[in-house]
């Protein structure tokens, strides 16, 4: 009996040790991703299918609230462990690439020999537009790509005696005229904005002005191009066009509300410039009906470049600190290879494997969104993005709220940016 007990104990120890060993031998990949139902389920399913395909790999996804992503990923990177892969929006990703937190794309993990072959897996230029490219090197693969278009309330157009098809504005001048007719006043106070934008946060005015500048032929996606552009009359004209919405054209009262998406959804403004294809879903939670709304391409400057609204998105990256980079890239390739699952919810992944018919099926007015995504303005890739964006937003606010002239504000911006981007 005693011998038997000893044998059982030894057997138990042996099994336990082998289980622990087996666990240790498994490759563990920790992925940081922003949380957004119903996409969380698709991501979790991707992890499951990957683990079924490669039983030696264990994937753990940590979901984080979108605004917390940069801080959480920074902290994980600084801590030196526990993070192999992560998602990051293009407006923040340059900081991570510039500071050595991201590893370069490894073509072998994708079964390719060169980076060019990897790039061919996605729509042309989409790695730049979604923030996976910095300083001549490719670090991230696209996970989502979206672009801002102009949204207009066709019900308000009819009310103002405009034809919702023939009178859709194509230039900024026409845009102001149309918005002017849709603006409603009471006692000289605007109670319905013809156009609105959230000026409290810098990101929205920055993005719209970014498009204006590129339509004017200025090179805003690079730090040097941005700095050089500020001395040009085109830059001043772009800034003036924007600030005039509030100061001269009388189509925008910033005091009416902050959030233009909410204002538009509740019929308190007739147009805005900061919504992508996802706005259809957002609109459903407000009072304005889908049939009273139309997404249209960004208006252009007469004689300017044919460039649409800003294109933005998310890329997924492998952390430089990851011990299993090849497996990490394999996992990201798998994660970003199911555009057909995402498109059902109106979420566009620019992977070439996506059947274009599916995009047309699930995204209302996809013709407008697709053309604008392709023609859209790629954003500035800079580790100083937040500060730059704040300075540009401030240049607009100085004119709108402080009564400063556009010239003076542009000079102040030049001074501030030369300090930030030195």
């Amino acid at each position, binding site marked *: 009996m005693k011998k038997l007990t000893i044998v059982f104990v030894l057997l138990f120890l042996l099994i336990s040790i082998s289980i622990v060993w087996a666990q240790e031998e498994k490759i563990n990949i920790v992925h940081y991703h922003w949380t957004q139902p119903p996409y969380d389920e698709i991501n979790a399913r991707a992890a499951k299918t990957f683990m079924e395909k490669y039983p030696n790999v264990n994937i753990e996804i940590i979901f984080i609230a979108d605004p917390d992503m940069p801080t959480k990923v920074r902290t994980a990177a*600084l801590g030196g462990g526990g993070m192999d892969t992560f998602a990051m929006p293009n407006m923040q990703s340059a900081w991570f690439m510039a500071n050595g937190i991201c590893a370069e794309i490894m073509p072998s993990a994708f079964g390719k020999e060169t980076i060019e072959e990897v790039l061919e897996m996605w729509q042309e230029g989409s790695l730049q537009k979604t923030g996976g490219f910095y300083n001549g090197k490719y670090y991230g693969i696209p996970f989502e790509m979206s672009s801002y278009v102009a949204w207009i309330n066709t019900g308000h157009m009819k009310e103002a005696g405009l034809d919702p098809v023939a009178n859709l504005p194509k230039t900024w001048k026409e845009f102001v005229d149309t918005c002017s007719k849709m603006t409603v006043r009471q006692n000289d106070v605007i109670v319905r904005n013809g156009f609105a934008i959230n000026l*409290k946060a810098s990101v929205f005015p920055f993005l719209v002005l970014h498009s204006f500048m590129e339509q004017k032929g200025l090179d805003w996606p690079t730090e040097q191009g941005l700095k050089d552009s500020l001395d040009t009359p085109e830059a001043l004209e772009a800034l003036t066009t924007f600030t005039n919405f509030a100061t001269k054209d009388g189509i925008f009262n910033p005091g009416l509300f902050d959030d233009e998406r909410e204002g538009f959804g509740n019929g308190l403004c007739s147009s805005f410039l900061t919504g992508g294809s996802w706005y259809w879903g957002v609109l459903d939670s407000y009072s304005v009906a889908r049939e009273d709304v139309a997404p249209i391409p960004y208006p252009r400057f007469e004689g300017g470049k044919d460039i649409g609204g800003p294109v933005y998105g998310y890329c997924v990256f492998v952390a430089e600190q990851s011990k299993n980079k090849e497996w990490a890239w394999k996992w990201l390739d798998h994660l970003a290879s199911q555009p057909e699952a995402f498109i059902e919810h109106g979420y566009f992944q620019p992977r070439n494997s996506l059947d274009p018919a599916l995009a047309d099926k699930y995204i209302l007015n996809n013709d407008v969104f697709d053309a604008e995504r392709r023609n859209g303005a790629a954003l500035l890739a800079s580790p100083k993005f937040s500060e730059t964006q704040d300075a540009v937003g*401030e240049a607009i606010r100085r004119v709108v709220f402080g009564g400063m002239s556009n010239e003076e504000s542009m000079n102040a911006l030049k001074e501030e940016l030369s300090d930030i981007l030195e």
Partner: protein
Amino acid sequence: MKKKSIGIQKATYYNRLQKQGYIFILPTLLLFSLFLIYPMLDAFRLSLYEWNFAGSPLYIGLKNFIKLFTTKRFWSSYSVTLQFTFLSVFLLMFISFWLSLAFTSKLCWFKQLYQSMVFLPVILPMVAIAVVWKFMFQSTGLLSVVFLDIFGWNIPWLTSTKVAPYTMVLVNVWKFTGYYMVMFIAGLLNIPDVYHEAAKIDGAGFWRRLVHITLPLLKNTIILVFVSCAIFSFGTFALQYVMTGGGPSRSTEVLTLLIYKEAFEYTKFGYSAAISVMFFLTLFIFSIIQLKIFSSEAEV
């Protein structure tokens, strides 16, 4: 002899009790040191470094401070904070003092109801207050509509660089008046009635009693209210963060908001720490002055 031994026993007992007391507070003291005192001291060290959260901090001496003193944005923020503090302190003290006088007067009816109404905003969270006031300040909001309909004034509460700083003070005063009022009421109730009654018999009117009895006997309360009011107003954050984000055009960007932005939005942790040091020094100097006043009061 017996008395002496009892005395020694008592002393040993209290010494032992005191030592045990230290053991009881040790965990709190350790946590307090680790999470409050150490980070505070480390901010001084960090202010001498350039550090963006990635990589090792780079020692740059006093460069952060030199940059700070030559940057318009810092001075603008400093001046916004001082303006907010001075105005808030003045209005809060003035209004809460007069309210406390009214509520301790025998002539006032329904005192408790009024007191509760004035005190109510104190228990509400600042974020909730800021959100509600923001709605009221919109151009179609309650306050804007009232002012436009009654007085014909279209006040740009949050969209003018000239008006927004005062709007912040208005909300701050509305929230904290009740708190300081209670402090003043406590001080007023500590003044024995006999002084006032004696003065009344001698023919002193309201103003004389106020100047020669109430104010001198309320000095310590006034100093306490002044100091706490100044410190809390100087450290304001949530109000500006929620209502304006520092805008319009940085006209409400207080120092705490600038510290937050420099650290967590621009990842300039060294520079942000330098601003924190300046913030600390300002309050430190203020506290020294206040301590001097207190000690001179004690000597008197």
